[in-house]
């Protein structure tokens, strides 16, 4: 429990720092600024992964709960959704296929094949 509260406190403090920076002129959203700060803090060893692992796991596992209230707001958008259904669906499909196939083909071309065994070892680190 202590571990969880400590982890949540760290994550929230980083988010608030990100928001503060955003409010003071950095054009990137506070959450993403926080993500970058957090990543940097773990890379440099300022923050230890084990301090935040449980709290981060909890937030990520139950992320769906956090966007339920916004999604319920779709109930007020029947009009615009049905009027724009074709544009929305077409944009979704075209963009999905473009990203998936470009990335897959680009990665096949740029990433040299790696023997499966070394990938397996890299996994063992986790």
């Amino acid at each position, binding site marked *: 429990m202590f571990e969880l509260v400590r982890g*949540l406190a760290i*994550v929230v403090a980083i988010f608030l720092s*990100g928001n503060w920076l955003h409010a003071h002129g950095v*054009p*990137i*959203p506070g*959450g*993403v600024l*926080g*993500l*970058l700060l957090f990543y940097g803090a*773990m890379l440099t060893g300022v923050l230890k*992964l084990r301090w*935040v*692992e449980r709290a*981060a796991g909890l*937030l*990520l596992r*139950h*992320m*769906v*709960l*956090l966007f*339920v*209230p*916004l*999604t*319920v*707001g*779709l*109930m007020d958008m029947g009009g*615009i959704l049905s009027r*724009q259904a*074709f*544009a*929305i669906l*077409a*944009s*979704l499909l*075209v*963009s*999905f296929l*473009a*990203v*998936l*196939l*470009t*990335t*897959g*083909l680009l*990665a096949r071309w740029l*990433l040299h*094949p*790696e023997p499966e065994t070394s*990938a*397996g070892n*890299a*996994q063992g*680190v*986790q």
Partner: protein
Amino acid sequence: MSASAVIAHPVFSIGLTVACYAGALELHRRWRWIPTIVVACLPIVVLLLLVHEPYAIYNRGGNFLTWWLGPATVALAVPMYRNGLALRSSLPRLALIVFIAATVGMLTAGGTAWLLGAPRTIILSAVPKSVTTPIAIEVCRQLGGIPQITIAMVIVAGVLGATFGPLLLGLVGVWENRAVGAAVGSASHGIGTASLVRRSEMQTTVSSWAMAACGVFTSLLGALLAFFIR
């Protein structure tokens, strides 16, 4: 106490939302094909319609939950860091690939909606549709889109990738684990990544990293775009 006073009370709407989410999780555990988000939202929508209360009343409490999407975005650094360690040697190339993926995603989503004559808010809502929900919402707000439309598109993009991603990649001859992971993570964020867990550990590792990185690149590009269109 009138129905609206009860629903407007944050404790009620938070409790209702958590209860509906818990029920949806349980159903999802039993029947995998049931999408949690849809089942969690339906009872709330039905209740609001039955008692003739507007969404804004419910959302007074809902906002408390929405706020936590910020810390959840921060938490994405954990899978990014952990999986980044396992991918060290190929990280620079992967970063380049995912950066291109983020650019392609934003341009094709916004571009298609624009070509079809959609209004400005729809075009801007479509732009961040490839990335994980909390980041997509932030980018959408920054651009001046409608977060709800972005969320709906994000979810469908996720389900498409989880269902057809590896199959479509196979059709163009992409089988290699890291290539599949990079493509599914960039196009279908967390929902796509979760579907790879049963296929291969390497695909999951790359996909988790790609999903977080694609979110970061999209919000950097989004900030740039917001600067030019405002």
